[in-house]
């Protein structure tokens, strides 16, 4: 995983395939709770699936600080 674009691609792919969202509903500023209506179990689910794809495992405090899709990309980019 090198570029932020690729990370965003993986993230939106997971959200489409595993969570059933429409492909055009994602931007970097899309809010996980307000826009996508994810709850705490969904957030863990997302973290587990992203770990399987990227090898990056989030810590709890990191996961709790995430608000937008851009935050997720930043986190994976920073760790990868």
């Amino acid at each position, binding site marked *: 995983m090198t570029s932020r674009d690729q990370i965003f691609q993986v993230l939106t792919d997971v959200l489409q395939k595993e*969570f*059933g969202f429409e492909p055009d509903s994602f931007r970097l500023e899309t809010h996980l709770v307000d826009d996508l209506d994810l709850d*705490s*179990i*969904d*957030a*863990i*689910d997302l*973290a*587990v699936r992203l*770990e399987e794809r990227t090898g990056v*495992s*989030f*810590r*709890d405090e990191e*996961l709790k600080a995430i608000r937008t899709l851009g935050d997720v990309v930043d986190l994976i980019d920073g760790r990868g």
Partner: protein
Amino acid sequence: MPPWGRIAERGSIWGIRFTSACYRVLGRRATLPLVYAVVTYFFLTDASGRRASLAYLRRVHATAEGRLAIPRPPGLRESYRHYRTFALAIVDRLAIWFGRSDQFEFESHGLDYVDGLAEQGRGALLLGAHLGSFDALRLLARRAGRAVNVLMFTANAEHINRVLREFAPEIEERMISVDPSSVQSVFTIRERLRRGEHVAILADRIEIGDRNRGLRVPFLGGRVELPQAPILLAGLLGCPLVSIFALREGPGRYRVHLDLLAERVQLPRADRTAAVAELLTSYARRLEHHCLASPYQWFNFFDYWGDAEPSAGEV
């Protein structure tokens, strides 16, 4: 839960210390009458525990299958038998932890299948209950050379590990304290499942410290609240879900029953609660089946249905 119910119960350090000291100093033969005496004392003095026991036995008796095990309407005699069966379970637990665990014999149904999954790196989440002996399951796993991880939704796990190390350093089992809202807990458990270990949890009570809500499902003619957390975890892990109960068949003899509840737990986002309820209902159905077959081995001596005065239609 009355205080006596916590004797030798995990979490009660004093209970473990006291009863294990008796067991090690006096042996099984002298410990059993002692535990009978303690249980009898509580039977005589603790009205709420006695009422809970009777309410449960009546629910068993209210079913055709239950009347095979409890033919006449339950009264004090049946309730006392219930208490004495608990004493036997406590002494067996001591024997398993501290004594001659090689004297136990097991028969099992379904274990090969679950172990087969584990060998493919698909350890299962095992849902047990306060029915029969959870410790017998640990012993069985130990003999099979498998580690058992016992999950608890409390911060008590490390405390109990310390006491176990103090009294029975050879016990390899691990208690893991989990928080279902923690992604790190999920990763920890997933690691163990992938190593081919099973992870067990008691799913018939909502533990103090479990912040997830419960769901009410049918059980023995009423509805009881069971914890969502174990099912949510299984969904996050995408692992097999298995109910597991070890029931005492005679001195030193246990029969272990495993039933597959789901080969791979999947909880659709849109109907997650319905999917959890469905799996909890299957679990409760298995639990009920074994309660009816071995009614006296049920060790929840509190108002389990949350209706100390059950409505006429339910009993």
